[in-house]
């Protein structure tokens, strides 16, 4: 087992624990294209870990490796001290990894409530027969799940759109519903792919607050990809910076910000 060394306490009083997931020398190739080249970093229990980088740096691919959707060409992923093999999507969910998508992936015709309920599918136990005939444990189980879902609805302050079909909602709210669905799975690690993309300032502020609250209230470890540097610097405990598939920086926000390689990647360097 990898050493699960002690964590630390952040300035605002949150506890960061030991290593939850470790990525060792990950390389990911699609045919001749190398999306990720030999990247290693770890994710600690309870932290907010950001992955940043210019467009095409391989951030979303990295997130897909973490979620188990892509199996790395080389290297290994260690979760809770064990090496992880190739997995089916439902196995990923059962491990306690949930995500939101860069392009919203909700069921447009279904209500907000139903969409969030789908987040609990992997936690439902009653069989097909029982569910189809609403008999035995199914109704009791649904009530219990509904209660959890209602707590999340309350938490994210979306009570007023509970029964609204998702297709009718504005973008910012859809993003929040997606977060709600991910939370409904009670994840250990929550992966957020550009949660603030396309939002206005107010929506961004709301989202930031919810991400911090989720982390604070449920102790959920959060890995997020984000372009808005202000958001990243404010939210995250540690930041991984990628450029052209390589890791060019890793550390607390203030350290990363002053890293010359990072500045060059973002602002560009003169080629003379």
């Amino acid at each position, binding site marked *: 087992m990898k050493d699960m060394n002690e964590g630390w306490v952040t300035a605002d009083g949150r506890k960061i624990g030991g290593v939850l997931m470790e990525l060792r020398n990950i390389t990911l190739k699609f045919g001749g294209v190398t999306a990720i080249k030999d990247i290693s970093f770890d994710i600690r229990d309870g932290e907010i870990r950001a992955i940043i980088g210019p467009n095409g740096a391989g951030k979303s691919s990295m997130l897909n490796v973490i979620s188990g959707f892509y199996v790395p060409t080389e290297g290994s992923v260690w979760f809770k001290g064990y090496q992880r093999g190739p997995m089916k999507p439902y196995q990923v969910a059962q491990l306690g990894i949930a995500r939101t998508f860069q392009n919203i992936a909700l069921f447009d015709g279904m209500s907000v409530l139903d969409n969030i309920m789908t987040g609990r599918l992997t936690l439902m136990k009653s069989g097909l027969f029982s569910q189809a005939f609403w008999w035995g444990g199914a109704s009791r189980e649904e009530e219990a799940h509904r209660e959890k879902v*209602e707590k999340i609805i309350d938490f994210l302050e979306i009570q007023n759109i509970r029964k609204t079909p998702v297709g009718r909602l504005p973008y910012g709210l859809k993003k929040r519903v997606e977060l709600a669905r991910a939370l409904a799975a009670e994840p250990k690690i929550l992966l957020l792919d550009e949660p603030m993309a396309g939002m206005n300032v107010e929506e961004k502020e709301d989202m930031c607050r919810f991400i911090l609250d989720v982390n*604070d209230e449920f102790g959920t470890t959060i890995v997020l990809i984000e372009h808005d540097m202000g958001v990243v610097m404010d939210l995250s405990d540690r930041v991984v910076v990628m450029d052209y598939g390589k890791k060019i920086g890793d550390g607390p926000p203030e350290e990363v910000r002053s890293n010359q390689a990072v500045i060059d990647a973002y602002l560009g360097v003169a080629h003379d």
Partner: protein
Amino acid sequence: MADRTAAEHSAQSIPALLARNVARYGGYPAYREKEFGIWQTWTWAQANEEIRALAMGLLSLGVARGDHIAIIGRNRPAHYWAMVAAQMCGAVPVPLYQDAVAEEMAYVLGHCGARFVVCGDQEQVDKVVEVEDRIHTIEHVMYTDKRGMRKYDHSRMNALADVIAEGKAGHYRYEQELETRIAELTYDSTCVMLYTSGTTGKPKGVVLSNRNIIETAKNSVSFDRLTRAEEVLAYLPMAWVGDFIFSVGQAYWAGFTVNCPENAATMMTDLREIGPTYFFAPPRVFEGQLTQVMIRMEDAGRVKKWLFDHYMALARRVGPAILDGAPVGMLDRLRYALGGFFIYGPLKNTLGFSRIRVGYTAGEAIGPEIFDFYRSLGINLKQLYGQTEASVFITQQPDGQVRSDTVGVPSPGVEVKIGENGEVYYRSPGTFVEYYNNPDSTASTKDAEGWVATGDAGFFEEGSGHLRIIDRAKDVGKLADGRLFAPKYVENKLKFYPSILEAVVFGAGRDRCTAFINIDLTAVGNWAERNNIAYASYQELAGHPKVYDMIRGHIDEVNASVARDPMLSGCQIHRFLILHKELDADDGEMTRTRKVRRNIVAEKYADLIDALYDGRDSVYTETEVTYEDGRKGAIKATLTLADATVAPGVQLAEAAE
């Protein structure tokens, strides 16, 4: 009847009424709140348990007689309980507007010297913590919603639920003391202190005694024959006297159920689910609902649209008469019943008004079309006229005598007289005790005989005996040539157009009147969409030439109607502009109850007013705005100034209608 009278004589405080209700209605619902998607109910007996436990918890925190306990939060049972619990301890509850910014809150908290504060959530706690250092009286803060509160310094802070638990645990220790304190309450002890929103100057703390509240509740409950079975939705600010009368005074007197919405945004859904039987809303709520209905009907299919138009025309013709019990032909009655099946019933259900027995509106004038729309559906919507200092009720409309342009007859127990300058005065059992720590204001408002000046100008209509309010007495002025200037009268006429949200008319001491217009973004936005008018922002829409044309059309119509009134024909609007931002309470331009502060607006936009009078076509301006979190920014705009058509005034003789 005899035993009831005896019991009622002994109930001389809200806690005493609570005890009476437990004995009389113990198993009936007192409070409901929707939480986690489900309506949770507390019976009178259960509510009593919670309130007593909370009161004992407050005792354990050291609440003393006469302390002020501020309550800042949305309408929740726990907050109402906190008010009654405070009364049980002999303390004075002071509900505050929850959307007030920290500065405003600091003034009120400092003025009443609150030792304890009950906050709804983290947002309110943050504001209190921010101002705490300046106000040295605050000793302990309690909060209802635990979310995000874990990291706060809890040495002088508690969750309200923990205080209740503390009270339950310590009930052997505190029961005796609590009984003593409750027994000390009399008809003249302070029931609640409410801060007036203050269209001018600093807010004043209006002290209302148990007598004020209970007598008013008693009279108004019998006026409308309210019973234990009424359902009300408590959604108006707790700091407003109306909510205190409806959700505490009348609810405790009649023993009916107070329903609290899940949050502010779900109010319409909750309204539909509860279907209140007794409902109060300011005109803007009714206006907003009507606008919604009209917008949706525009999008409806042709058959539905035809049915709607057909039956609404019928309803407008016979609906109000049927509601007033006036004679209506058999055929029309039959048609109306059919309309009820097709349109009125489903529409009322959608609006949440299926069960309404008595509905009130007040605060501002309501448009006749809006008023008639609801009445024609068979909703018994009435008007009342009141103020904080009167424990709400001054006049109200009895069933069957309802009109959109009067505010009714004096409420039971209230005497009303008109002063020499046209100002309305009243005297009643609900008349406030005093302004807290402000004997000068008390003396200037209430005379030795108990008559209170309302500050409104009005007159009793001959024949019906109903009161009509023209305007704020101090706003009623003269134009330069001596003609009467009543801005509110014209503004209200303008505001009846769905596309006009607010209007501010100027002209006192000038030779002619001009106006600022605020467009209603929902209505005008919808109109723009329909007419293929593209816009990117409120400012752009407000400045659009076609919007100007539409507004000019409305103003011309208002001018024509104002011209018909011989007294007020001088108030026609000659020039106007559409403001580039909405008037906002955060900028101090309106009160928290959304009344325009005329002087502040005039001062802040002095450059625009000057431009309206010096004949320019456009004016450049920069305006400072305050965001919700207190930060400031600036909006720059070049505004168009436009002329309106002025109708010739009629001769006195032919206008005597």
